[in-house]
């Protein structure tokens, strides 16, 4: 019997998303390993990990958005059954940073994992009613079969990488 975290990792793998597991303390090192330069991002809404002090540009201009090779943003939830991450839009432009660059690195906390879509919709329902009302359920890279074969990286990222921040062992 797999744990929720293991299920999530397995399913991320099957939707072509690479996985790095890290502790809060080792987060920035883990990040450095998977980020391509130039990288842009949006502030992570988490207390114990941050993009401050990394090479990630947090308030990109349109040019930087266009030129970035990599975008780093947070996920509000992870859905274990599907390998799905829930990306929220923010006034700082998290939606853009996770969409334009070729590579999207998404940071998801272990404590934000849910088992399935039913649980995800329960959480999202609360958030939407509280006014956090933009979210993309993102599963794997952008893809199309419209050109006669399956191709990754259409209007959105070609590669996706999840950094899972483990809960602090207490």
């Amino acid at each position, binding site marked *: 019997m797999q744990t929720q975290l293991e299920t999530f990792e397995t399913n991320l793998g099957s939707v072509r998303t690479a996985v790095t597991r890290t502790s809060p303390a080792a987060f920035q090192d883990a990040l450095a390993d998977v980020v391509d330069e130039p990288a842009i991002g949006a502030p992570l809404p988490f207390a114990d990990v941050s993009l401050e002090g990394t090479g990630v540009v947090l308030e990109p201009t349109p040019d930087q958005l266009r030129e970035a090779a990599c975008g780093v943003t947070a996920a509000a939830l992870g859905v274990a059954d599907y390998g799905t991450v829930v990306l929220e*839009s923010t006034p700082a432009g998290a939606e853009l940073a996770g*969409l334009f660059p070729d590579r999207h690195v998404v940071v998801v906390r272990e404590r934000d994992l849910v088992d399935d*879509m039913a649980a995800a919709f329960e959480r999202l329902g609360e958030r*939407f009613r509280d006014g956090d*009302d933009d979210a993309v359920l993102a599963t794997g890279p952008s893809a*199309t079969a419209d*050109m*006669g074969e399956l191709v990754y990286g259409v209007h959105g990222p070609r590669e996706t990488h999840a950094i899972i921040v483990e809960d602090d062992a207490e």
Partner: protein
Amino acid sequence: MSSERSRKAERIRQIMATEGDSVERNARGFNEGRYESVARLEDYDAYKDRARAIKEDAIERLPELIERVRETVEENGGTVYVADDAADANRYVRELARERDAETVVKSKSMTTEEIDLNEALAAEGCDVWETDLGEFVLQVADEAPSHLVAPAIHQSREEIAALFNEYFDPDTELETAEELTAFAREYLGERIEDADIGVTGANFVTADTGTMALVTSEGNARKTVAVPDTHVAVAGVEKIVPTFEDLQPFVELIARSGTGQDITSYVSLFSPPVSTPPVDFDDDGPIADDPADREFHLVLLDNGRMDMREDDQLRETLYCIRCGACSNSCANFQSVGGHVFGGETYSGGIATGWEAGVHGQESADEFNDLCTGCSRCVNQCPVKIDIPWINTVVRDRRNRGAEDGRLDFLVEGLSPDEEPAGMDLQKRFFGNFSTLAKLGSATAPVSNWVAETLPSRLAMERVLGVDRRRDLPEFERETFVEWFRNRDVPRPVDADYHAVVYPDLYTNYIRTDRGKATVRTLEALGVAVEVPEVASSGRAPLSQGMIATAEDHAREVSADLEPYLEAGYDVVAVEPSDLAMFRGEYERLLDERRYQAITERSYEVFEYVYGLLENGVDPAPLRSADNGNGVGSDLAYHSHCQQRTLELEAYTTDVLERLGYDVRTSDVECCGMAGSFGYKREYYELSVDVGDRLQEQFEAPDAADRTVVASGTSCLEQLDGLLARQPRHPVSLVDPDGSE
């Protein structure tokens, strides 16, 4: 009429030649993916029930929900406009474009904007409109209509797209691979998105309680279309509204699985606009985040006939459709021709009949409605459980009724004791009244068979009735199945535990009497007291021609004929699956509840019945087993009938055959392509054979080529007989203790 049939046949032939291969590869790929993906979803059936219930409730309460959406969207800071029709919707969006001096408009895929021809309206306003979904982009460049609800350019191969792009854009280096084509489109459309003044999307769902749009996509273009320009217009049919945010969940679980066979698409965007992402002005060099988020959002809710559909007891179900495309992908005819033949102005596949009749008017369904043969394979695949064949039947019936008075009516008059209006298509009338013809043909056999097969007869039948002369006609037996039974000198069992009527369907009674006789012997060998009374034909033939009133008459007669037996405790055993499907399915609509229940609860397919007997402890020893198969090898290739599979009855036949020592390999094509009268019709003959080719291919593959071919449906047997060198057999002939076929 005759030249009309030739024109239709020619058009089908041409589309099969140019688009058939791509359509078949893609649609069958989606279809296989769907079978696999829904099998992985625990609670698949429960989700379908929930999805159905949500839609029923939403359409029931639609006026109230529209007002609720208006309130919630306006509370969020957007605007709602309810457009009466296409012109009204287009006018509204044009005015928005004019007020904003919009030069560039980018769009994500939306069938609803196709329905109203929004692109043309915006172009007339002087806007440069770009489709950013790659499939739609291909169509825009090729100036073609979508051929599929979900994958609009399903009919184009990579090579064709490459040729199209190289010709149209004349790039520095020729494009060839799918990667190159995608990269080119991404860059080209990326620039259009950067310049865009307005982004237009559809919506897969709109929630009334939170004013949330749900967009199901894979490429990321819809996200960019929403995020980059400061003005977003969503155009959605009013039927897209669901009551609550949580109602989205079953649809998110079902829509991609049902459509393209993915568990979920790359992106499901849920947003209650205006979104909090800052719009991007690519001419600006300051940080994007500094840009004031003064966004505008307009939701155009389109009526365009939908509120009338809601009032229409027969078409209402169409509004539950989430346009996943499963009915197209699982349709044998669609797999051969795609949406350019099996589709109307905008919509395609089986459900297109409902949509086109509802939004563009009855006539726009005329051309393609007959392509639904009623095989019913789509019914179990539809995530909202729409009875798609029934919608097709109803629209066909309305067409028949609307038909002009015809001149040639007297020709079939004597053969047409039906309830249908004068003037309806002669071909339909001919096939719809097959029971009368069969009676006459049998009474005068074998002379009728000789006459029918003469060349002048075949030419006349082809010209007047559109019966293709390349098909063998059924041969009538002089002694009917019912007469054989009556004339037999066999003592009835006394004190039998089981009593059954073997239903003498048209084919079993007049044409393939052997399988009826085999059924009687089989059941009697298992100790069943059998009767074969005169019973009316089921009404399947008229129903498939859209002659509902006539079918209703048949159903009532069947019910009256069977009633004394049902009251005396008899079960009803059907040899022909399409008739059993009538008893279990359509009779619910054709009979009152009591009569329907009386028949449906007690009727069985022959192998379902045998299986039940064996499960109840009856000894199978008297049946013929593979060991004494009388020249039939023990290896079988079995094609179950389409409707039999929809009723989930295939397994009984394979199980019984396996118990008797047979090794059974089954086909997995959706339909044999014959589908009753369909394959006899001149305009559809070639399509029917193309569909049949898939079955032929499976049964001629090395692992099946030496097997005895077995099929349960009359149509399937006729089709296989025409396609294969081997003579196919009904499975009951194998187990018949006295089988000497």
